[in-house]
């Protein structure tokens, strides 16, 4: 009988903080600048330069630490992690090993109706490295230090996850908390959130862990799920063949759905960590912690309850809307503006979700103003426009944030309520479609639909379809 195996997974998650400047210098962190334009002697490791800590980095890091139930280290310090690589101009990365800013936390995850805690071992502040671009022409590498010195926190979990589902649930939970805090946009594709997966397998029921590998280069939730499955299978195959798993770092190639060894994993002692003498210790006193705690936003769990209570929308709606901070913000502002939360929720859940999917966008990228959505709800509710026109207008709000009142006025999209004009068009449609009229009278319901469609087309969509339907029936049934 085949042996049963259990997968044991721990995660190292790097998150780029949403500060305006780098961690130790006043260079911009903005994405996409021309190579090396956001650099200075500090972030390129020039001799004699002095790093000075960005206060906002500590604010964000402590806020994340508190939100994931960590203890905040009252006196934390920075250490140098020494290694040689062209993306690291100082030949050391400033990080925290001995006294990281936060430790011993947890987040709660839910998979398949089961709740569990994933413990957080520690969280530390550090700087990002530069970017290496391979130059095909010269077969050399080009180095851009714009990302060098961008602030990161690294969140290290305990090996508490047992499946790809749990890994994804954990990452989604972290992402949501950090987005709610406004501490990062957490985009996996753009690298503002990165996860390294430490994975081992052991025979079911065994206490001790198997040899683990670390997997890098995972830039989507789907890639992470595939990598977890792939690595689990690879390790089980090795064990079944009587071979050993080697402790190493592997690079996941999502196109090939396979991983390849990178370099043998250095031990912590190989990095020759030592305290950075250029940086003074950071003392976070009770008062500071209390202020950060007091400024913590309303998180998802509280929002869910409030939405049901205050806005009277179904739990299902509230769950979808609160999956994104941006979406939740739009919902609250638009509902306050028009006083019709369920209608606002419908626009977000149906049309907004559809358009996001169509454009391959994340909810955090939504750029329309809640006021314009509120106006659209009002125009629809008071019958100024019908629902198909409303959808058309919403697409414009979604892509260009147009003011729906102006747009409807300019494009002449108001519903025609003049019954005389409608009757004229109806009579014309009936005269031009004798076959459909015959079919309808024979009992073919579809024929009526086609006549309604013709009428709407002739009225350029500006009629109320329910009214057209009713009037058509009246004319045909007599």
């Amino acid at each position: 009988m085949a042996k049963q195996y259990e997968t044991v997974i721990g995660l190292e998650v790097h998150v780029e903080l949403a500060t305006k400047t780098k961690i130790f210098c006043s260079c911009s962190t903005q994405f996409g600048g021309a190579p090396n334009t956001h650099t200075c002697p500090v972030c390129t490791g020039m001799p004699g330069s002095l790093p000075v800590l960005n206060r906002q980095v500590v604010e964000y890091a402590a806020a994340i630490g508190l939100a994931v139930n960590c203890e905040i280290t009252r006196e934390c310090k920075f250490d140098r992690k020494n290694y040689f690589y062209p993306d690291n101009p100082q030949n050391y990365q400033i990080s925290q090993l001995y006294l990281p800013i936060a430790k011993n936390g947890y987040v709660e995850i839910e998979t398949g109706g089961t709740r569990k805690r994933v413990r957080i071992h520690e969280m530390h502040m550090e700087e990002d490295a530069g970017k290496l671009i391979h130059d095909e022409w010269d077969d050399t590498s080009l180095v851009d230090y714009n990302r060098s010195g961008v602030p990161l926190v690294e969140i290290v979990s305990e090996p508490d996850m047992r499946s790809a589902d749990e890994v994804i649930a954990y990452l989604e939970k972290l992402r949501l908390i950090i987005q709610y805090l406004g501490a990062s946009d957490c985009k996996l594709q753009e690298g503002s959130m990165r996860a390294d997966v430490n994975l081992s397998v052991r025979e079911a029921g065994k206490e001790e862990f198997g040899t683990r590998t670390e997997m890098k280069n995972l830039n989507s939730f789907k890639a992470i799920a595939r990598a977890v499955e792939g690595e689990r299978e690879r390790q089980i195959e090795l064990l079944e063949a009587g071979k050993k798993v080697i402790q190493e770092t592997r690079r996941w190639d999502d196109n090939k759905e396979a991983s390849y060894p990178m370099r043998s994993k250095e031990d912590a002692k190989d990095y020759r960590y030592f305290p950075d003498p250029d940086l003074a210790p950071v003392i976070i006193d009770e008062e500071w912690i209390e202020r950060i705690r007091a400024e913590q936003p309303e998180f998802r769990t509280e929002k869910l309850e409030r939405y049901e209570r205050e806005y009277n929308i179904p739990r299902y709606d509230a769950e979808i809307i609160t999956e994104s901070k941006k979406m939740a913000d739009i919902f609250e502002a638009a509902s306050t503006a028009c006083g019709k939360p369920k209608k606002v929720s419908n626009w977000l859940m149906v049309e907004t979700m559809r358009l996001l999917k169509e454009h391959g966008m994340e909810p955090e990228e939504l750029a329309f103003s809640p006021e314009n959505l509120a106006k659209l709800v009002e125009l629809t509710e008071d019958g100024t426009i019908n629902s198909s026109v409303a959808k058309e207008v919403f697409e414009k709000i979604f892509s260009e944030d147009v003011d729906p009142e102006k747009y409807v006025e300019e494009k002449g999209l108001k519903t025609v309520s003049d019954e005389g004009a409608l009757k004229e068009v109806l009579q014309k449609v009936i005269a031009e479609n004798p076959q459909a009229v015959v079919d309808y009278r024979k009992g073919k319901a579809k024929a009526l639909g086609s006549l309604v469609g013709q009428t709407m087309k002739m009225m350029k969509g500006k009629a109320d379809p329910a009214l057209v339907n009713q009037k058509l029936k009246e004319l045909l049934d007599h």
Partner: protein
Amino acid sequence: MEDRKIADKISDEMIDYVGILAKLELSGREREEAKADMERMLDYIDMLNELDTEGIEPMSHVFPISNVFREDIVTNGDGHEETLANAPLMKENCFKVPRTIG
């Protein structure tokens, strides 16, 4: 006391390994010299073990200061010219270096 010296631990394997971490290729003679240098340095460090450090907080900073911060305001402009001024090799405003793996 004698047998606890860290300097005694500098074996041939150790010097090769340190060479790998430091990305240095050492010839036979250089290796022997580096080994002797390193042993002298560690002998010096060994003196610390003779001191009684019981109850003394490890010091990471020479001045009794803490919480030295900058506000999060961009004050640096385009620094690429200064940054690249001494680049041995350059291309498209990037440093050009030997091909890295990957």
